[in-house]
C-alpha cells in the first residue's frame, strides 16, 4: 500500500469513488500540517468507522451543516493560542453538506475572513443517503428524489452556481476543479493554501454508484465534463473579478455534451429526447460563452 498517503486504505468508499480520489489529491497537495473538519457524508462515513480511521492528519467530524463553522472555531482557537502559523485548516463537505444545509455556515466563514480552505467534493447528489437530489444536481439528472417519469424529466432545476456565489463573497481564492485534471486541482489547492484568508475549491468527483457509470471511468468522466464544456475550470484571486481566468480550455472543437451524458446511467432517459439534449447543449454553450470558451 501507499504508506505516504494521508488518506489510508481500508476505507469503505465504493470501488472507483471519485471523492476518495479528490481527498487523496487534496491531502497530497496540502501535506501533513493540516487539520481537517468534515461534514457528515460519504467521505466521513466511509473513513471514520469506529474504532478505525483512514485519516493520518488531525480530523474532526461534528455534524452535517457545520464543517465551515467548526473550522472557524479551530482557526480562532489556534490564533488565541498564538499557534496558527504553519498549519492548514481545511473544511471538507460534499455537495449536500455545502450547497444546501452547509451553505449558511460556509457564507459566515467566508464573510468573517477565516484562514480556512473549504473544499467541496461535488458528486451532484446526496450520495451517502442513497442518491437524493441536491441543489447541485444538474438539469435532467435522475436521482431518487428527482426520478424521471411520465410527468418528470428528472431534476427540473439547473445546478446552483455555488462557486460563483462564493466568488461574490470576494474570498482570497476561489476555483473549480476536477479529479479528471489532477494537476490543475493540486495547483489550485497549493495556491489557496498559500494565501491568507478564506478560500474555496469546488472539485468535481464522479460517483459510479449514483451516476451509474463503470467504476473504472470515474477519472475519465471527470475529464469529459471539462472537455465538453459541461464543467468549466476557472479560478479567481483576491476577490478581484478581473483575475478570473479559465485554467483548462476544452479542446477545439468542444466535444458535444451528449458525449458526456450518454456514458452515464443517470442521464440515460434523456438520450432519446433530442429537445432535452439540445436544451442542455444550449445551456452549456451559454455558460461557455460567458467564460470566453468557444
Amino acid at each position, binding site marked *: 500500500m501507499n504508506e505516504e498517503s494521508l488518506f489510508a486504505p481500508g476505507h469503505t468508499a465504493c470501488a472507483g469513488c471519485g471523492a476518495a480520489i479528490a481527498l487523496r489529491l487534496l491531502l497530497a497537495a496540502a501535506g501533513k500540517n493540516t487539520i481537517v473538519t468534515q461534514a457528515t457524508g460519504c467521505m466521513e462515513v466511509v473513513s*471514520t468507522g469506529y474504532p478505525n480511521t483512514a485519516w493520518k492528519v*488531525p480530523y474532526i467530524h461534528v455534524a452535517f451543516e457545520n464543517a465551515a463553522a467548526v473550522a472557524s472555531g*479551530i482557526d480562532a482557537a489556534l490564533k488565541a493560542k498564538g499557534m496558527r502559523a504553519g498549519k492548514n485548516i481545511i473544511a471538507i463537505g460534499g455537495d449536500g453538506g455545502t450547497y444546501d444545509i452547509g451553505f449558511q455556515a460556509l457564507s459566515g466563514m467566508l464573510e468573517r475572513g477565516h484562514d480556512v480552505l473549504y473544499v467541496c467534493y461535488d458528486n451532484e447528489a446526496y450520495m451517502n443517503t442513497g442518491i437524493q437530489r441536491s441543489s447541485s444536481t444538474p438539469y435532467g439528472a435522475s436521482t431518487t428524489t428527482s426520478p424521471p417519469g411520465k410527468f418528470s424529466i428528472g431534476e427540473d432545476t439547473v445546478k446552483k452556481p455555488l462557486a460563483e456565489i462564493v466568488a461574490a463573497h470576494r474570498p482570497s481564492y476561489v476555483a473549480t476543479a476536477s479529479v479528471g485534471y489532477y494537476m490543475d486541482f493540486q495547483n489550485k489547492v497549493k495556491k489557496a493554501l498559500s494565501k491568507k484568508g478564506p478560500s474555496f475549491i469546488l472539485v468535481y468527483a464522479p460517483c459510479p454508484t449514483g451516476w451509474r457509470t463503470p467504476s473504472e471511468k470515474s477519472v475519465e468522466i471527470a475529464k469529459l465534463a471539462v472537455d465538453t464544456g459541461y464543467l468549466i475550470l476557472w479560478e479567481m484571486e483576491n476577490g478581484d473579478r478581473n483575475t478570473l481566468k479559465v485554467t483548462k480550455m476544452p479542446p477545439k472543437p468542444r466535444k458535444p455534451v451528449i458525449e458526456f451524458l450518454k456514458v452515464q446511467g443517470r442521464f440515460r432517459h434523456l438520450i432519446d429526447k433530442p429537445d432535452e439534449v439540445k436544451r442542455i447543449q444550449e445551456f452549456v454553450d451559454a455558460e461557455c460563452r460567458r467564460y470566453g470558451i468557444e
Partner: protein
Amino acid sequence: MKMVLRGNMATAYAAKLARVEVIPAYPITPSTLFPEKISEFVANGEMNCQFVKCESEHSAISACVGASATGARVATATSSQGLALMHEILFIAAGMRLPIVMAVGNRALSAPINIWCDHQDTIAERDSGWLQFYAEKNQEALDLMLMAFRISENQNVLLPSMVGMDAFVLTHTMEVVEVPDQKDVDEFLPPYKPLYTLDVNNPMTFGAFSSPDNYMEFRYATQKAMENAPAVIDEVFAAFEKKFGRKYSRVVPYMVEDADIVFVAIGSMCGTVREAVKEMRAEGKKVGLLKITTLRPFPKDLIKKYLANAKVVAVFERNISLGFGGAVYPEISAVFVNAGQRPKIYDFIIGLGGRDILVSDIKQTYDIAMKAYADGKDDVIEWIGIKKEML
C-alpha cells in the same frame, strides 16, 4: 471588588476572569449583553480572546466545538430560540466530551414568541448531557459560571455546562456583585488541560462513526461521567467557598427540617418563595424551600435527604412539558416512587413567559396544596396565576 452588574455582565466578567480563549457568539434577547461586553473587552485589549461573530447560534456552538477540540477554553451565551437552534450540537458537544461553558438567559420558547423569563429553553435540553446550573442572583451567575469551567474540565467529567439565569430579572437587573480578583481566580482555575486535541504532531480523529455494536457503551460511558459529576461539583463548591467565602450546594434547603410543605423552586423565584416562607412561618405555617442549583446531574441523593420527611412537596415549574406537566415534578417523583416513606408530590406551573411571581401566589399555592393533601388527592398539576377571563 464590588461592582454593580447586570447578570449578563457578571457572566461576561466570569468569562474574562476565567481567561476564556475563544467566544463564538450570536446575539439574542436577553443574553445579548454578554457578547456585547466581551467584544468591548476584546476591543480594549482587556481580554486575550478570539471573539467569533457567528452568523447563527448553530454556527456559534459549532465553532465552540471546534475551538474546544483544539484545546482552547471556550464559552458562549444564548437564550430560548438560540438554544433550541443549537439543540443537535448540544448533544454532540456532550458526546464528544468537550467542556464548553454557556450562559443561558432563561427565556420562554415560541410559539407564541416571548422574550421574558421562563425555564423551558434549558429544561428542553436536559437530556443533552450538559450539566445544568441555575442562578438565583447575579452573584450566583458569576460564581457558577467560574466554577463550571473547573467542573467541566475535570478529567472525570469532561462534559459541557450551562448556567441559567432568568431573563431580565437577572440578565438585565443590576445587583451588587463581588467580582473576584484575577490573581485569586488564576489560583482557583488553572489553564485548561485537554485530554485530546487536534494536533498536527499527534493526529487523531474526533467524532467517529458509531454502530449498534458500540453506541450503547459510548452512552453508558457518558452517563458514568455524569455520575462522577456530583462528587466533582461538591468538591469544587467546597474549594470555591474556601477561596472566595461564598457557599454553594447542589440544592439549598431553607427551613425544611420540620416543614409540612416544602416548596421546590429554581432560579430567581427562590427569592420570592423565601420571603413567602418567612411570612408563612410567622403565621405559624410549617413551610420550607428547597432551591435546586444543579438540575443536571439530577441531585437524587439530596432530594431524597431533604424531602423525605415532608408531608407535601409543592414543585414550582417555570416550564411545561405539554401533554404532561412540569419537567422537575416527575424527576422528584421518581426519587420517591418506590420508597417506603414518601411525601405527596404536587406540581404547580407558574411564572411562564415572564409572568410575575408574587408572594401571594406562593401563599395561594400553599392553600391549594394543603387542601389537596387534606382531600387525599394523588394527582395535582395546577396552574398558578392563570387569568381565566382571557381563555
